[in-house]
């Protein structure tokens, strides 16, 4: 346990700012037990699902028979990643109300998904985003470019999950960082390979409620104790614990653009909509998801506010992402602190596992259909491919602020997959040439900004490069529209039929008459 503290402090040269008390670490034994319980529960539910998934269709989209409540919990479980569980609270601790745009944007992104994508995409009947674009634009070339974008997004999104796992393992147990990433990869591979999407649905639904409990119980207990002891606040909520400059208007707007438009292009989010029986239930599911997300995000906000007022020292310790893990120990200490910390660690691990497995399932769907011919064996092989590459990335790169790096992935999605989905669903004039040109433009601009930002390092990049969505998303849309107009003769002949399919209700309701 002492080693845990030492390892963590060695990784933070500003660690001497920590308040001197025993609460700056998590009890290793209890934390390991908590991680083990989450892992075993995940595996058990996964293997239980194995017995009922037999056909290829089961593996891909759970035969589209998942009930809205199950499905909504699963979507929530899959969506709430390391960034939501650890990153948002850490950022709120650092930058106060500016960071509140993250949870608002993550939730509002779902509203945009409901308004523009949910029902039409379900009615398209396609399994993956590349399936959709290929069918809509009657072009295998579009399919290949979309697959490339989707796989890039998925890989980029898995990396911060693995970073989060590495951070959690290091802080919770004092084991080396790589253990965390590898543990997540192994567990995810086993569950996905064993059961595919059907068991994933149950696993994800379970993990939403686990994550909610793991965040809610400790913070409510902390607030209760603080109020009972009439603890004096150490700082005002508005006080800036680090002295870093606040984000400007441009950054907030650009972030919001990325989150609003990025959500509706995320591959692991979209694949969930295929498990609804029809378009209307896809909408109802999304409505429930919005409620679940709204409830969930109250808690990272509460963590941020409580930490800002009662433990501002955690912000100066250099790892704000670890704040959620450390706060119970810091403010409560003793056995209660240990147990609640373990609960938070369990929830954090659930977050890494669920988002990673969701991404792996959807990536494996794309990779296996495009490269390996769409069999169950191909799906299993593809699942392994989907997770090994980001593991390499995670080893090579350092952890940025989790919420920030996930925000960049949203910007990339908003600049590539989002325009082709929105225009494909709502605009008859979209052509294959326009879609390809737009996706490439958005991908090159946003990817370029991300690379330049990564090379220059945080703090060195100007806001327009650090937060590129505000100009890369309009650029992608503009190129897509202009090129489509210029190649209007390429609008496929099947377009009216497909538009009809996307937007008309499933059946003429013969049963009701």
């Amino acid at each position, binding site marked *: 346990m002492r080693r845990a503290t030492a390892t963590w402090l060695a990784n933070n040269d500003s660690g001497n700012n920590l308040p001197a008390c025993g609460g700056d670490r998590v009890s290793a034994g209890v934390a390991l037990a908590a991680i083990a319980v989450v892992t075993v529960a995940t595996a058990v539910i996964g293997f239980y699902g194995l017995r009922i998934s037999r056909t290829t*269709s089961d593996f891909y989209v759970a035969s589209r028979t998942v009930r809205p409540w199950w499905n909504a919990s699963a979507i929530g479980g899959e969506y709430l990643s390391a960034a939501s569980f650890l990153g948002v609270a850490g950022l709120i601790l650092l930058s106060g*109300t500016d960071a509140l*745009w993250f949870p608002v944007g993550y*939730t509002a992104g779902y509203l945009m998904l409901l308004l523009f994508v949910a029902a039409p995409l379900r009615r398209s*009947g396609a399994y993956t985003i590349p399936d959709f674009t290929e069918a809509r634009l009657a072009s295998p070339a579009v399919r290949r470019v979309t697959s490339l974008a989707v796989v890039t997004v998925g890989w980029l999104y898995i990396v911060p999950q693995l970073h989060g796992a590495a951070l959690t393992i290091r802080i919770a147990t004092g084991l080396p960082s790589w253990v965390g990433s590898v543990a997540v990869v192994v567990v995810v591979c086993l569950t996905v390979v064993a059961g595919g999407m059907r068991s994933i649905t149950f696993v994800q639904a379970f993990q939403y409620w686990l994550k909610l409990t793991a965040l809610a119980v400790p913070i409510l207990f902390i607030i209760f104790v603080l109020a009972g002891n009439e603890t004096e606040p150490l700082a005002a909520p508005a006080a800036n614990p680090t002295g870093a400059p606040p984000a400007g208007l441009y950054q907030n707007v650009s972030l919001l653009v990325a989150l609003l438009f990025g959500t509706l292009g995320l591959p692991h989010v979209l694949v969930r909509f295929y498990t609804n029986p029809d378009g*209307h239930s896809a909408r109802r599911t999304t409505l429930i998801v919005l409620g679940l997300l709204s409830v969930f995000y109250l808690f990272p906000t509460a963590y941020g506010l409580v930490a800002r007022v009662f433990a501002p020292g955690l912000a100066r310790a250099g790892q704000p992402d670890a704040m959620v893990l450390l706060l119970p120990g810091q403010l409560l200490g003793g056995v209660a602190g240990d147990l609640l910390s373990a609960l938070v660690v369990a929830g954090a691990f659930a977050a890494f596992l669920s988002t990673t497995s969701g991404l792996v399932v959807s990536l494996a769907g794309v990779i296996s259909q495009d490269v390996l011919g769409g069999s169950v064996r191909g799906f299993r092989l593809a699942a392994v491919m989907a997770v090994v590459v980001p593991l390499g990335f995670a080893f090579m790169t350092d952890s940025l602020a989790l919420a920030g790096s996930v925000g960049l992935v949203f910007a990339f999605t908003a600049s590539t997959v989002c325009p082709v989905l929105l225009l494909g669903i709502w605009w008859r004039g979209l052509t294959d040439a326009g879609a390809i040109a737009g996706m490439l433009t958005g991908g090159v601009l946003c990817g370029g900004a991300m690379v330049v930002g990564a090379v220059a390092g945080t703090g060195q990049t100007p806001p327009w490069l650090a937060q590129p969505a505000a100009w890369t998303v309009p650029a992608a849309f503009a190129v897509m529209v202009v090129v489509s107009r210029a190649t209007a003769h390429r609008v496929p002949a099947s377009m009216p039929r497909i538009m009809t399919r996307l937007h008309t209700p499933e059946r003429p309701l013969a049963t009701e008459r």
Partner: protein
Amino acid sequence: MTRVRVTAPHTAQGIPARTPGQRIPNQRTAGPLESREAAQDSEVGQVFVRSLIRSQLRLALVVAGGFLLILAAFPLVLVLVPGLAESGIAGIPFGWLLLGVGTYPVIGLSAWLYVRTAARNEARYRDLAGEQ
């Protein structure tokens, strides 16, 4: 409203309901997006479809626009009303309450309104296109 009698070929037998889980992903080259809409191919059918798409798009844009306006108004109110951001309920500053709690009901309400109206648009389409 006068009901237009549509003589599209599909109306007699309706369209068979699909059973879930039947489609096999290998057959994607044939395209999963087929068959159901063949019936709505007629010119009149297309007019109905176009008007359905237009009304759904208009609805989505109105809800999205309204939501974004309210969202933009939140920080504006905090800036324009001096002292509001600092005053608070039970020690929680109003600025935090408004952004951290107050936005979610707005999101939920927008979503609920949308789902209801979108279903109503579809019901109207069914009335026009599906009924004899």
